[in-house]
């Protein structure tokens, strides 16, 4: 099969061309069908690539070999993430069809419904591109492709505030991307290359610590620009304020896709950057210190904010930020990459579940304030599903999150990091408390606020529960596979 050779580029081209075709259909159902077919194809292709994996695949565009041409690189770090990202989009399209129609496209001009799926696929092509490319400038271009589609996707919702939020997102997202671009320029000026592996090889060869002159300083400045750009772009904790405004106005169901993927993408970008561009010896101590400080502050503050939040959606958004704090903490320990991806993927599945839950409620009642929540009645299956999803997300015993948290505590104690241990323990308690608050708002809404009945299709919620149960049953197998994959070359 000649196509197997071209898998790296097919993974990006399938959603890109599907986006073009679905923009040309002028029909909602047809564009949905194209999106589903393209995504199924992407999942299959990603699976085939992972199944046949023996060593990192390098794909040179137009046969221009690496330092000159643009190159894609698939290895066991990014290929599983690509498969997961495709699977999330497939879930979103198939199980969310009803909710998409009722909570998102309802607010769009009926002649332009097909554009929603087109934009979704454009954003997806950008995400997969960021994940597979091995070229710094290419990363910038793909970030912008996905962002441009995302700005439009989150600008539609029941509330016109979504527009203002999307505009803020555009402003700060562009500043973040510009900072990344400046950082790429600095790397280019020092090494004369844009290829990540090439840059890392050149930096190793020149041995920057020997040279007291400007070279080392330029590299440090470049690292600072890249990290601040990535943190601003992905709205990690100290720079997350714009995200609160952007996400509060828009329809919660689109966040099941965007929020789940963007945090994975940001962590992946920082990881690839930290491990491949920078010489580990040189940057280990300052970056670990920086990441650990950010992580500890994030964990404790975001958990506290989530507990204090007055809106269901705000709780979830702060909870996402707090989880990114845990991930930064693990990243700063530099030893347990398997744990990192377990936590990242499990948290992403949790957040998909919670946002879907909220989307079901938001469809019936526009008010998501905790104090004025309506009582949910006659929707027993919904309550069952909600209970399971909240328990899974809170990290209570008997689910993957719980086992991962225990592994994290174990790691912290083994490394003798008592202060970090206390912070994580405290944050876990806060985590359970805000999940309780969340559950209270859903199960015990006051009758005087009104009554609502959930009669939307609940298949999506049960699919998430099934996935949770499967991850729990096959936990050791998945851990082994991820552990092997991540331990493979870092």
């Amino acid at each position, binding site marked *: 099969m000649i196509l197997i050779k071209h898998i790296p580029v097919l993974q990006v081209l399938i959603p890109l061309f599907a986006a073009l075709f679905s923009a040309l259909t002028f029909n909602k159902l047809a564009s949905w069908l194209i999106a589903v077919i393209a995504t199924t194809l992407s999942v299959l292709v990603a699976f085939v690539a992972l199944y046949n994996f023996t060593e990192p695949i390098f794909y040179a565009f137009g046969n221009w070999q690496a330092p000159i041409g643009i190159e894609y690189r698939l290895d066991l770090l990014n290929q599983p993430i690509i498969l997961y990202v495709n699977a999330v989009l497939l879930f979103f399209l198939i199980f969310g069809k009803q909710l998409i129609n009722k909570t998102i496209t309802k607010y769009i001009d009926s002649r332009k419904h097909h554009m929603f799926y087109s934009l979704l696929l454009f954003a997806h092509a950008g995400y997969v591109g960021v994940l597979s490319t091995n070229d710094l400038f290419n990363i910038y*271009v793909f970030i912008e492709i996905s962002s441009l589609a995302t700005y439009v996707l989150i600008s539609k919702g029941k509330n016109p505030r979504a527009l203002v939020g999307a*505009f803020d997102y555009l*402003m700060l997202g562009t*500043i973040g991307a510009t900072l990344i671009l*400046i950082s790429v*320029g600095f790397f280019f000026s020092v090494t004369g290359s844009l290829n990540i592996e090439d840059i890392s090889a050149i930096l190793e060869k020149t041995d920057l610590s020997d040279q007291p002159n400007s070279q080392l300083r330029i590299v440090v400045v470049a690292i600072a620009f890249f990290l601040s750009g990535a943190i601003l772009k992905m709205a990690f904790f100290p720079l997350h304020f714009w995200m609160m405004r952007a996400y509060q106005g828009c329809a919660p169901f689109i966040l099941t896709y965007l929020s789940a993927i963007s945090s994975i993408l940001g962590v992946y970008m920082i990881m690839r950057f930290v491990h491949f561009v920078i010489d580990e010896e040189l940057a280990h101590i300052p970056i670990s210190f920086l990441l650990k400080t950010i992580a500890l502050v994030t964990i404790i503050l975001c958990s506290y904010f989530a507990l204090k939040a007055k809106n269901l959606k705000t709780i979830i958004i702060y909870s996402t930020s707090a989880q990114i704090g845990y991930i930064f903490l693990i990243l700063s320990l530099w030893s347990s990459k398997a744990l990192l991806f377990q936590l990242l993927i499990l948290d992403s599945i949790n957040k998909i579940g919670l946002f879907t839950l909220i989307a079901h409620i938001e469809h019936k009642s526009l008010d998501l304030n905790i104090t004025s929540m309506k009582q949910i009645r006659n929707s027993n299956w919904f309550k069952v599903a909600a209970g399971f999803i909240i328990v899974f997300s809170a990290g209570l015993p008997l689910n993957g999150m719980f086992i991962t948290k225990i592994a994290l505590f174990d790691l912290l104690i083994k490394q003798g990091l008592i202060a970090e241990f206390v912070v994580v323990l405290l944050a876990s308690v806060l985590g359970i408390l805000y999940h309780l608050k969340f559950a209270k708002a859903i199960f015990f809404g006051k009758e005087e606020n009104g009554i609502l009945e959930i009669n939307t299709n609940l298949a999506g919620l049960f699919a998430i529960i099934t996935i949770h149960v499967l991850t729990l049953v096959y936990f050791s197998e998945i851990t082994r596979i991820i552990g092997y994959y991540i331990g493979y070359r870092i």
Partner: protein
Amino acid sequence: MQNLIYFFAILVFSAGLFVMLTSDNYVRKIIGLGVLQSSVLIFYIALGKVSNGIVPIDIYGKNDANLQLFSSPLPHVLMLTAIVVGFSTMSVGLALIYQIYKEYNTIHEGEIAEKEISFHDIN
């Protein structure tokens, strides 16, 4: 003296950032965004310049004794892409401003915030 152009780029970058973050009018913010992005163009093109280098066009044969230094053409090519990205970002931004104007009848941040507060009071 040769580093002067980088200071100019920093100046343009700061000016753009200042306009973006301090102005109340959304169209001015977009103008600030455009200024900010052009600073990157200056920065990159300055990187490509080689002192005493000529325009990178191959007018001499390979065996010519007059082989000269060329400026690097790569940053210029990269900036073509960045210009396109900047242009499309600006278009999306202007489209969003148009939608905001249709919803709120104003493009001033302060006035929209006031309307938001009164909107909350009604509900």
